[in-house]
């Protein structure tokens, strides 16, 4: 056995992977070869150092929730059979466009599900996660509300209010179409430092008005309310206080606001 062969076999010896015959061979070589026995000693030190001091990175806690949500699996310990019926047609990780289309089809399956807002909340979280993940934040990327708002015209049967909040440190990133609560909705994306906020907007059932309500789920904070004929859901990984600032800024926008939402057509399906 030469030293190069010995160097390979040493690994197997170190990892207890050698049969007895080869273990004896390598032991013999190391007895005779000072260089190899010194190398082996160093490998051994290295191995125990790695075992004791090597950095083992555990998955962040929210990752499991995020995955469950993306797969429409129930959260741990809590069975929600209806969301399980959603076999994930949209697991396809192709182009983001294809993903968005399939997602829409997949989500339309919620039509068969009962309507509790638990499902809606999970849908909103899924949409939020998907928008970050698939790198599909915006169909129309623009920080200009006067560009984003008209983009929705003709794509939706309502006209969502689009507000620039750059002055309040929530810069408009853009808008996209999404699908929630069995209908197409407007999604506006805002950035606050490194964090993104998705604001989903769709017409409220007539006369629905509700004060902001907050929810924390799967590592995300959500605030939803109804106002001026529209339902609003804001979601982000921002902490709740900052997300509240966002909502407050929306409620008291600067003069540059494009006005409240107007509904062009009654929504009947």
């Amino acid at each position, binding site marked *: 056995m030469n030293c190069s062969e010995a160097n390979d076999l040493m690994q197997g010896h170190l990892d207890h*992977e050698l049969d007895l015959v080869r273990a004896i061979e390598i032991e013999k070589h190391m007895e005779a070869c000072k260089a190899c026995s010194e190398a082996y000693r160093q490998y051994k030190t*290295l191995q125990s150092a*790695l075992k004791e001091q090597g950095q*083992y990175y555990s*998955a962040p806690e929210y990752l499991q929730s995020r995955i469950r949500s993306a*797969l429409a699996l129930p959260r741990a310990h809590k069975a929600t059979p209806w969301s399980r019926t959603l076999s994930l047609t949209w*697991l396809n990780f192709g182009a983001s466009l294809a993903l968005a289309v399939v997602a829409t089809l997949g989500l339309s399956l919620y039509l068969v599900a009962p309507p509790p807002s638990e499902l809606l909340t999970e849908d909103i979280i899924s949409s939020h996660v998907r928008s970050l993940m698939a790198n599909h934040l915006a169909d129309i990327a623009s920080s200009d509300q006067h560009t984003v708002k008209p983009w929705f015209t003709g794509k939706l049967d309502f006209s969502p209010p689009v507000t620039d909040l750059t002055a309040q440190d929530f810069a408009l990133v853009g808008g996209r179409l999404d699908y929630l609560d069995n209908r197409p909705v407007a999604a506006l994306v805002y950035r606050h430092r490194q964090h993104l906020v998705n604001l989903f907007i769709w017409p409220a059932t007539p006369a629905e008005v509700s004060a902001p309500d907050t929810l924390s789920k799967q590592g995300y904070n959500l605030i939803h309310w109804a106002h001026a004929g529209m339902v609003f859901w804001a979601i982000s990984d921002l902490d709740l206080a900052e997300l509240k600032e966002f909502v407050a800024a929306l409620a008291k926008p600067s003069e540059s606001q494009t006005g409240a939402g107007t509904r062009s057509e009654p929504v009947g399906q």
Partner: protein
Amino acid sequence: MWHLGKSSRDETKARRFEELALPHLDAAYNLARWLTRNPQDAEDIVQEACLRAFKYLDSFHGEDGRAWLLTIVRNTCYTGIERKRREAIETSLDEDTDKLEESGSATAPDQAGGDPETLLLQEAGRRLINQALERLPLEFREIMVLREFEDLSYKEIAAVAGIPIGTVMSRLARGRQLLREYIKPMNEGS
């Protein structure tokens, strides 16, 4: 529309996925984190790998969910790294892209930033060894992580990495030799 019969099948699938894959998220993340050297990429990779795993769950008939998930994570990492490399080629044609992987790792050893005093503290050994591992070329790094952190057998490593057992051993030999070389000058330098 969905048939009723399908929902119970999907429920079984969901349960199987929960039992097979979800218990190994830490292992999946640790591998992805070491391969990408970036927490954000590692999260995305693990999530994408889980979606793939779920998609192909029906074609997996084995028992060892960890090795199975790690295989998918590894492949997803390679796809991601390859994609990044291609993007890098597109954006900077003049850059020596073959060296990309290397140059990323070259920043690992903390030379400029770390003051000598701190390096002398207990922390030093831990940092030294982790920086050295981080600097290791990808094909050796992955084998080291599977071996030393997950304690996988050579046979399991061979299956996860898709290489013969003999290659596992020679990569470990080369990887450990490189680690020794990285650590020596770093030790002497401080």
